[in-house]
């Protein structure tokens, strides 16, 4: 080589970064394989039996019995194969997908290890996964809707809490439906407040979000200790009953997991579908995304940037208000101080995991919901893993993802920047 080229061209740099990432994923998969082999396969004896049917189901299903140790060995072998595959030519195309599959696969020997010699209800856990994913998915959806128009939404937590509170109080007065409508409206009102602060008054978006969270926490805690403790009847809302979808809910496993829920689960799924259609298949969705990517260009084309931001952030607030109502109207019927307990921030993480896409946010929410319900079940199975560590896992995963180990997730280009019309 006569000429030393110190600045590699852009494609070469990308190729190098991708190769490096592939190698990292390869090592991670191999490490995972070793971990599965030594922790989940070697010390385990006995069968893990998973109950698939509830007593009293239309179709009775036999238990799924898995010999724990052999199963874990098989998974370790598959993981090792995936890992080695990363070091062979042509690996980078499939590395992300294989890593995802590998991670999912690695969870299963964990389950057989935890269940070995015992039995536990797999269907019950999957059902709980869906239920617990609802507020996270709706929080993530709220994040997607507002960040697509370049408004960073730290306030999801506050909007969820406001929805939960309104659902409980108005639900106690007017019944479940009234409470739900009120929760959506109040969520929308806080979305409107956020939009007003960041669009019209150009408050720093993060400060505005933090302030709204503190304001809602203060307001709901104050009213709950000042008023609700004296008037208990104001905090006793009816809970929406599960609606079984005819025929589908009788299917084994799938029925209880997907089709025996209350309106919050169905509502969340429908809203994710509508939001996807709106953002990616309608003219107004295209305008909204244009405002998020390049507000100056959008403005030049005659799009009212401010109006679009107002509308979308308000819609985001309404989605979060609906998700917040789940905590009271969809779950326990009464409001407790700070009952959302950081779910809004997990929704924010779900949005990042889902790469600013509604369906992605829903998928990420399902993963978080799974971790959440797993944590509950592990307490029953009495495994040596502390529940706190499992609870931390989503947060650590988020940090790893944001740090860009696994593929760069790209936010909308103008995200977080206020737009000042010339």
């Amino acid at each position, binding site marked *: 080589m006569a000429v030393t080229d110190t600045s590699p061209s852009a494609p070469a740099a990308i190729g190098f970064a991708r190769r490096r990432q592939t190698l990292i994923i390869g090592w991670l998969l191999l490490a995972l394989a070793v971990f599965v082999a030594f922790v989940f396969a070697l010390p385990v004896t006995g069968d893990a039996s998973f109950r698939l049917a509830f007593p009293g189901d239309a179709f009775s299903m036999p238990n799924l019995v898995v010999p724990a140790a052999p199963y874990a060995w098989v998974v370790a072998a598959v993981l090792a194969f995936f890992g080695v595959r990363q070091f062979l030519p042509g690996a980078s195309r499939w590395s992300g997908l294989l890593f995802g599959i590998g991670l999912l696969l690695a969870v299963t020997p964990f389950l057989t290890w935890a269940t070995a010699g015992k039995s536990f209800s797999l269907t019950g856990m999957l059902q709980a996964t869906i239920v617990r994913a609802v507020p996270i998915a709706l929080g993530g959806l709220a994040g997607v809707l507002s960040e697509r128009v370049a408004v960073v939404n730290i306030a999801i937590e506050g909007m969820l809490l406001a929805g939960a509170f309104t659902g409980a109080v108005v639900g106690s007065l007017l019944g479940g439906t009234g409470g739900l409508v009120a929760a959506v409206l109040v969520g929308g009102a806080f979305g409107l407040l956020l939009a007003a602060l960041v669009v019209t008054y150009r408050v*720093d978006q*993060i*400060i505005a979000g933090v302030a709204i969270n503190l304001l809602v926490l203060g307001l709901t805690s104050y009213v709950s200790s000042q008023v609700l403790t004296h008037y208990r009847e104001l905090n006793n809302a009816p809970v929406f009953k599960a609606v079984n979808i005819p025929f589908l809910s009788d299917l084994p496993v799938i029925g209880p997991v997907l089709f025996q829920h209350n309106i919050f689960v169905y509502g969340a799924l429908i809203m994710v579908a509508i939001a996807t259609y709106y953002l990616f298949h309608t003219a107004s969705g295209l305008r909204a995304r244009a405002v998020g990517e390049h507000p100056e260009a959008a403005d030049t084309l005659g799009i009212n940037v401010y109006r679009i931001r107002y509308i979308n952030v308000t819609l985001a607030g309404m989605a979060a208000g609906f998700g917040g109502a789940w905590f009271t109207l969809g779950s326990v019927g009464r409001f407790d101080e700070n009952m959302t307990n950081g779910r809004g921030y997990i929704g924010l993480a779900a949005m990042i995991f889902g790469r600013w896409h509604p369906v992605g946010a829903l998928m990420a929410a399902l993963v978080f919901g799974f971790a959440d319900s797993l944590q509950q079940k592990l307490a029953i199975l009495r495994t040596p893993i502390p529940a706190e560590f499992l609870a931390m896992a989503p947060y650590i995963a988020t940090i790893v993802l944001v740090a860009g180990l696994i593929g760069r997730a790209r936010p909308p280009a103008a995200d977080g920047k206020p737009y000042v019309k010339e």
Partner: protein
Amino acid sequence: MNEARNPDSVSAQLLKRAAPARADFEDLVIVPVLAVIVALVLGAVIMLATGVSLPIIGRSFVALFVGSVGSLNAISETLTSAAPLTLAGLGIALGFRAGMFNIGAEGQVIMGGLAAVIVGFSFPGLPMVIHLPLALLAGALVGALWAAIAGWLRATTGAHEVITTIMLNLISVKLLDYLLRMPWIQRPGRADPISKSVLPNAELPRLLDWLDPTLRVHAGIVLVVLAVLFVWWLLFRSTIGFEFRASGLNPDAARYAGMRSGLIIVLVMALAGALAGLAGANQVLGVLGRASPNFSGGVGFDAIAVALLGRSHPVGVLLAGLLFGALQAGARQMQVSAGVSLDLIAIIQALIIIFMAAPILMRAVFSFAFQKPAGR
């Protein structure tokens, strides 16, 4: 999410160096004073809306006043509450100055406080001159390390500090829950998560207990004064402080001028974390004597308001910390003597943040107090 770097953004304006002019007088005095007054008035409106009668509202404001500055005990309570808020607020202000948005003070307070407790109950027999500084140092160090994670990730991978610090907050809460049940931390004979007690030699000594043993004000306030002086010197008299401010105002220009932006980011976060960790140490060594879940009590979030209200200036942060300390001390009195919930103060604090961060709103509503914008 590069909000803090935009020259038009509010946070960039907050970072602006004070200069003697009418506009700055408005920014530094009129807006904060109006923000506090409006927030208090809205607090009264909220009390009215929740069925609190007018005489009781009057009584609660009297209690708020008496409970914060009305007696020696009240002043002692105000100073006790102000100390952690000011310390953590100084850390956040330092971050603002360097263009870093550190939401993670809460987690840093937790980790720092826990470290201080662990050192505080270990090593029986150490003399106070060694044990107390050691415990404080442990708090500052662990807080610094915890925050430096976010700084390091930002510097090396570009991961935004808002997301990482929020996640670190949530992780620290779980970690605290877990560690408090470890046999070497948990108090013997207790089933609930609570740590052993700090040994007397590691406690921050009470300053006025020779007057009245109930006065809780402790040597932490000396720490606060030292921290204010240190941050002032650091920001305005040292080279590294100049680099902090330069990176906050224009990171690209600072980089072209040869400043090592990555190092600055990590250093700022570590210093902010050290101050927040000290705030946690101050709480456990001076007031609580042990760690329990939620021992931080939201200090890290209130400190964001303190830093904003103090316009990220060390002296301003001290004044804002004193005000918030007074509000919290007064609120306790208010709850006892007027029966109005303590949480009202959380609303007032949130409103203060909103008004402080929205000078445009304040100017629009209270146009009489401000100069007309001369064709801006």
